[in-house]
C-alpha cells in the first residue's frame, strides 16, 4: 500500500501540474452555453434595442407627450412631419407614446419581478431551510394568499389608496412572489439534504451564512429562469389592468393603455392597436427565448 501510494501520489502531482490552474465555475460554463444559443442571444439583442429605444426614442422625435394639435388628429404612419408611427385621436405622436409606453411597461415588468424575487427568495429559502412546523405555517399562509384573486386584491388597493403607478408595482409584486416562494422552497428542500450543508454545519458555519453561501447560489438557477418568464407575465398583467382602467393614468402611458385605446379605434386607425401590440408580442417572445436559453444553459442535464 505504501509503495502504491508513493507512486500514485507523484503521478497525481505531475498530471495536475500540467493541467490548467484556473478553474471554470459552473456559471462560466453556463454563460458559454447560453452565448451559443442563437434564439436566446437574438432575444437579448432585440430586447436590448427595445430598452434603448424606450430611453432615446422620445428624444429623437420633435414631439413630446403633451403636444396635442387639432391639425394632426389620426394621421397614419408617415415620414412627413416626423409622425413615424402616426398620431392618435387626440393628435399625440404615436412614436413618442409607444416608446414612453415601453419605458413604463418594461419598468413595471422589471420592478414587480424584482419585488417578487426579493420576497419570494427570502421567504421560500427560510421556509425550506428551517423546515418543520415553521415551514408548514409559512406555506399554508402562501396557500391562503393564493386563494385571493389578483384582480380583487388590486381593486381593493386601488379603491383604498387611489390610482398610483407605485401601487401597481406593489400590487403585482405582492401577488407574484407566491409562486416564487414555492419554487425556492422546493429547491431549498432538495439542496438542504446535500452533504455540503451538513459539512458547513459541522465546521461551525452560522445558519444565515449557510443560507447565503450554500443554499441560495444552488437554488438560483431555476429562479433565474422563472424570473425571465415572470417579467413578461407582469407586463401582461399590467396591460390588462390598464385595459380595465386600473393601471397607469394619463398622460402617462403604457403598452396596455395604448392597446386598450387602440382597440376602440380599430376600424378607423388600426395602427393605434397594431404598433403597441406588435412591440408587446416581440418583447414576450424575447423574454421567452431568453428564459428557454437560460434553462438549457443552467441545467444541461435536462437536454
Amino acid at each position, binding site marked *: *500500500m*505504501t509503495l*502504491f*501510494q508513493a507512486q*500514485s*501520489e507523484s503521478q*497525481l*502531482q505531475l498530471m*495536475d*501540474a500540467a493541467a*490548467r*490552474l*484556473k*478553474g*471554470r*465555475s*459552473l*456559471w462560466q460554463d453556463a454563460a458559454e452555453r447560453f452565448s451559443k444559443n442563437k434564439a436566446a442571444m437574438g432575444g437579448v439583442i432585440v430586447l436590448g434595442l427595445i430598452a434603448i429605444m424606450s430611453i432615446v426614442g422620445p428624444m429623437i422625435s420633435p414631439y413630446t407627450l403633451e403636444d396635442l394639435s387639432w391639425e394632426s388628429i389620426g394621421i397614419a404612419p408617415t415620414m412627413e412631419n416626423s409622425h413615424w408611427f402616426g398620431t392618435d385621436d387626440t393628435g399625440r405622436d404615436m412614436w413618442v407614446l409607444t416608446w414612453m409606453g415601453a419605458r413604463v411597461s418594461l419598468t413595471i415588468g422589471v420592478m414587480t419581478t424584482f419585488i417578487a424575487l426579493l420576497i419570494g427568495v427570502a421567504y421560500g429559502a427560510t421556509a425550506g431551510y428551517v423546515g418543520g412546523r415553521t415551514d408548514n405555517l409559512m406555506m399554508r399562509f402562501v396557500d391562503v394568499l393564493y386563494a385571493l384573486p389578483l384582480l380583487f386584491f388590486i381593486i381593493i388597493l386601488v379603491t383604498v389608496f387611489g390610482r398610483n403607478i407605485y401601487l401597481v408595482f406593489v400590487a403585482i409584486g405582492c401577488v407574484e412572489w407566491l409562486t416564487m416562494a414555492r419554487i425556492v422552497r422546493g429547491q431549498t428542500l432538495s439542496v438542504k439534504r*446535500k*452533504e*455540503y450543508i*451538513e*459539512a*458547513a*454545519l*459541522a*465546521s*461551525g*458555519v*452560522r445558519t444565515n*451564512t449557510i443560507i447565503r*453561501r*450554500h443554499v441560495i*447560489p*444552488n437554488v438560483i438557477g431555476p429562479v433565474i429562469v422563472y424570473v425571465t418568464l415572470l417579467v413578461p407575465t407582469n407586463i401582461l398583467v399590467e396591460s390588462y389592468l390598464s385595459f380595465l382602467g386600473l393601471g397607469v393614468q394619463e398622460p402617462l402611458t403604457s403598452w396596455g393603455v395604448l392597446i386598450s385605446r387602440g382597440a376602440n379605434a380599430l376600424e378607423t386607425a388600426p395602427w393605434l392597436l397594431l404598433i403597441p401590440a406588435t412591440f408587446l408580442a416581440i418583447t414576450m417572445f424575447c423574454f421567452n427565448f431568453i428564459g428557454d436559453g437560460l434553462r438549457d444553459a443552467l441545467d444541461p442535464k435536462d437536454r
Partner: protein
Amino acid sequence: MSTPVLKVENLKVHFPIKSGGFLNARTLPLKAVDGVSFNVDAGECLGVVGESGCGKSTLGRAVLQLIKPTAGKVVWMGENLCDLSHETMRQKRSDLQLVFQDPLSSLNPRLTVAEIIREPLYATDASMTREEADTRIAAIMTAVGLLPEMRNRYPHEFSGGQCQRIAIARAMVLRPKLIVCDEPVSALDVSIQAQIINLLRRLQKEYGLSLIFISHDLSVVRHLCHRVMVLYLGRMMEMADRDSLFAKPLHPYTQALISAVPIPDPAKERTKEAVILSGDLPSPMNPPSGCVFRTRCPKATPVCIKDAPAIETLDNGRQIACHHWRTL
C-alpha cells in the same frame, strides 16, 4: 494509551416515526442507536463496523451533535456536549470534524477549493486575515497531497479521490482533535481507497488525531484502526482491540462478519469455516425481543429470545454482549 478524550455513555438516538392512519395514528420510536458506550483515546483510531442500516452513521452524527441524541452523554474533554447551547457547540466544532462518504456531494459545486477550505477558518475565527488564511490553506493542501496552485479550481474538475482530499483538507484546516470519518472510502475505486487510507493514517500520526472510522469494510478497518466496535441494530455487540478481534472473534455476529472477508491465500480461503448469515436485517422499528441478533444467530437458544444479554467486560478491556460467548 492515555486518558480518553471522548467518552460516550449510554448514547441513544430515537427518531419518532408516525405510523397508522388518521384515526389510530401513533408515534413509534425508531431506535437508530440504543445505549452505546465507548471511549476514544487521544491519537487513537476507533473502527465502527456493521451492516448498512445498523446506526453507524447516526452514531457518528450524534457524537458531533449534528443529530441531537435522545439520551446519554457525549463527554468531550470533560464537557458534556449534549448540554451545550447551539452557539457554544458551534464554537466547539473546530475540535470535532467530519468527513463524508460521497466526496463530490460534500463539496459545494459553486465554490472554489480555496473558498471551501477557507469557510471553516472564517466561521470559527472572524478576525483571521486573508493572508493568514491563505497560508493555512496552502499548508493544508500540501499536507493532504494537493497542489496549492489548484486552489482556484472547482470540485467538478477533480477526481473522486482528489475531492476526498479536499474534504479532508477542509476538516483538517481547523486542526481538530477528532475526526469522524463516515465511510470515507467506500465511494472510491479500490486503488484510490488505499491512498486515502494511507493519507488518513499519516495525518493521524503527524497531528496526533483521534479518529472514529465508520465502515462496513473490515479489511479497511483492520488496516487503519486500533480498536474496533461492532454494531448491530443500534446496539454494541462486541468491542476489542484490532488484533484480538481479528484473531479470535468471540461474538457470533463478529464471527460471521469476519468469515465473510476473503483471505488472500487460496488454500486457507478454501478450508476456512464460513458462517453465513441468513435473512435480512430486522426493522429497527420493531427489533426482536431479547438479543437483537437472535433472528439470524446460528447459536441462538431460548434464553436469547427472553433476555437481552448484558455487556460483559473482560480483563483486557474487551467487551461483549452475548449469553453464550464462553461456550462458542
